[in-house]
């Protein structure tokens, strides 16, 4: 029962310490560090650091899909991590965003990209509300199957409705507008200037004369400008996520997740906030879908949105650590990046991924990067256990066992009692 503090606990404490030290840094130096880090991330596909860089597939493209999945995971984290709603059909929102973009920019109309983006977000939010309003009243686990059904219904609709392109999909979705002159091959590459890439000889970097990225041409040739675009969007969404999380809305989500009845009795209109979480999550999902639709290929079809991808989204959030936005970012990046990095084992990718998903819950039950407070709570619990070790637990301890509330996903002790 009571084990001494393990090496892992101590590591966790160190991590918490680091987080706290970070929080105590002056605002200006924190801002500076964040800016430098952001700059590093913007430059990453140009620097092409050894080991990290994928050799067999376009590194810029991998960076793009990693950032894109990170964005999706941050959105889904609002639904799963903050509000505790298990949404297995998030792909449906992604699809709605992508198809709204496809229909408005190519299939039926020719709207400009930056006008479509907000419309796609609005349409996706609306679909989130339409799905959530009837279904968010059902129990948590039922929501999982209902959302899974939604993801499948949406996919079947676009597969079967001719107006939406049916099985052939939608092509020629325009790229975001280029900054500077348009590329006119073979006479001009377009854009304002070329940013060279690095190449590495062992640990010695040199400028690569054959590779460069035109600033700023969105086209089929180079994924890096898309990476910059989606990284920018990701940063903006992360800031918005932080602002909302640290407000009445974020507190209401957390309270609802912890104990819905108690939250309701403390004046939280829980249904409205769950619906809001659904809508916010859907908005980010739709945004990612819209960006995906207008990325390199400019082509979407129903096969781009398998239900399996939806399961991967959920895996990204939980692997990273549900409830922590940085965990979601990490989870999204890992789920997108690792299979590409190890392409030489291509056939065994899913198998290894499955094994990883099985091992993780045993060794990191809270995810790779759980919220710092969760770590602190766990270590504190262990310390209390240690202090009480061997003693008969008095009557006062019964009260600590907490509520027999409805199905809060966040609670840690609701199923363990059977095992």
């Amino acid at each position, binding site marked *: 029962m009571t084990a001494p503090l393990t090496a892992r606990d101590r590591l966790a404490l160190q991590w918490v310490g680091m987080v706290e030290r970070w929080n105590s840094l002056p605002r200006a130096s924190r801002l500076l560090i964040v800016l430098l880090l952001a700059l590093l991330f913007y430059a990453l596909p140009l620097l092409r650091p050894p080991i990290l860089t994928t050799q067999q597939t376009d590194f810029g493209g991998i960076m793009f899909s990693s950032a894109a999945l990170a964005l999706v995971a941050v959105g889904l984290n609002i639904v799963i991590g903050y509000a505790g709603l298990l949404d297995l059909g998030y792909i449906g929102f992604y699809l709605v965003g992508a198809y709204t973009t496809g229909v408005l920019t190519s299939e039926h109309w020719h709207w400009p990209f930056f006008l479509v983006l907000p419309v796609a977000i609005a349409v996706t939010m609306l679909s989130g509300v339409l799905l959530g309003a009837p279904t968010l009243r059902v129990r948590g686990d039922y929501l999982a*199957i209902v959302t899974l059904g939604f993801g499948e219904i949406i996919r079947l609709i676009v597969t079967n409705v001719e107006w939406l392109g049916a099985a052939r999909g939608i092509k020629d979705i325009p790229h975001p507008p280029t900054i500077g002159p348009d590329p006119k091959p073979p006479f001009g590459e377009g854009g304002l200037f070329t940013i060279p890439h690095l190449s590495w000889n062992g640990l010695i970097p040199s400028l690569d004369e054959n590779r460069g990225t035109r600033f700023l041409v969105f086209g089929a040739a180079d994924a890096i400008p898309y990476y910059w675009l989606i990284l920018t969007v990701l940063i903006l969404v992360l800031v918005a996520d932080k602002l909302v999380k640290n407000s009445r809305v974020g507190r209401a989500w957390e309270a609802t997740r912890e104990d819905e009845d108690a939250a309701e009795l403390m004046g939280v209109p829980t249904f409205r906030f769950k619906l809001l979480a659904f809508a916010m999550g859907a908005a980010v999902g739709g945004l990612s879908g819209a960006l995906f639709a207008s990325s390199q290929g400019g082509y979407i079809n129903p096969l781009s949105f398998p239900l399996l991808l939806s399961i991967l989204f959920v895996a990204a959030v*939980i692997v990273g650590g549900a409830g922590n936005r940085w965990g979601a970012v990490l989870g999204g990046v890992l789920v997108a990046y690792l299979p590409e990095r190890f392409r030489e084992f291509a056939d065994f990718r899913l*198998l290894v991924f*499955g094994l990883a998903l099985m*091992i993780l*819950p045993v060794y990191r039950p809270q995810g790779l990067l759980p919220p710092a407070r969760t770590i602190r709570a766990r270590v504190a619990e262990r310390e209390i256990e240690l202090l009480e070790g061997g003693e008969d637990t008095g009557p006062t301890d019964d009260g600590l066992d907490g509520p027999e509330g409805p199905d809060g996903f966040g609670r840690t002790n609701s199923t363990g*009692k059977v095992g």
Partner: protein
Amino acid sequence: MDFDFLINNFVGLTVTGLALGAIYALVALGYTMVYGVLQLINFAHSEVFMYGTFAVAWVFVFFHGKQADTQGLGSALPLLAVSLVAAMLLSAAIALLLERVAYRPVLKRNAPRLMALISAIGASFVLAEVMGLRNRFAGWFGLDDDLDNYVAKARDVYSNPVTIQPEGLFSIGDYAVKDVDVLVLGAALLMMVALDQFVRRTRFGRGIRAVAQDPESAALMGVNSTRVVQVTFLIGGLMAGAAATLYMIKIGATRQNAGFILGVKAFTAAVLGGIGNLRGALLGGLLLGVMENYGSALFGSEWKDVVAFVLLILILLVRPSGLLGESLGKARA
């Protein structure tokens, strides 16, 4: 909407729908029982079913050979009996393995419930991929030539060499009811009744109900909850194996990803009837099968799955805990 087609083929649609629904119901048991005992969505149960379907095809390849053939139900019956046993054994073994490898270690660590789901998703990937890469694994041991009939083209559709030709058994109106549908429906109902009696009447059944209602008290009363969980998985596996055999009789072919959609349907059936409720699984499965058939007739078969999920959402709106309510013994809040 093609009402004429629906009305003209009403009996046939109903009968085949019931047969399909019976298969859903048998698979749904694996979800509903595990949910009742552990409050977990047994995500990998679809793979338990999928392994059963392969067992059936393998048995036919082993005894009959790879050459294609068409037989009536009567002449295929002996091999079907063998494959039923094989499928039930293989599925049960996979289910027990799942419990041991994917669930117990996670639950023992008091991980959040979502983590058990992640482990189950991982196990589902692993099981499907192992099946889809079986030629590679056989190759590692130099067995790929010997086992060619069983492992070649591991990611393609794998068919039972013997196609079972349905024959009319009796008529309802103009419609000749096929022997295959009668067998599938009858076998499934028999299994369900047996299981229902098992849970209601035996000591183990009482243990399962006790753990489902209140694991802590059950443990205090001396119920071995680990054993109960194992038995639950075992039963789920056996039923999935039976479902796999019936599925192969009707459909005749499988694939490493054949479990996924069927699993989603079966889970839908479980929720439809009221998860945790055995009779609910039966009702939900049959209803789903029949409604899917009617829906295909009305709107076209490409809308079949949409009908299923819309039905689910509608029923949950009216009865939030399913048609018969949740219980594996008694309703819980």
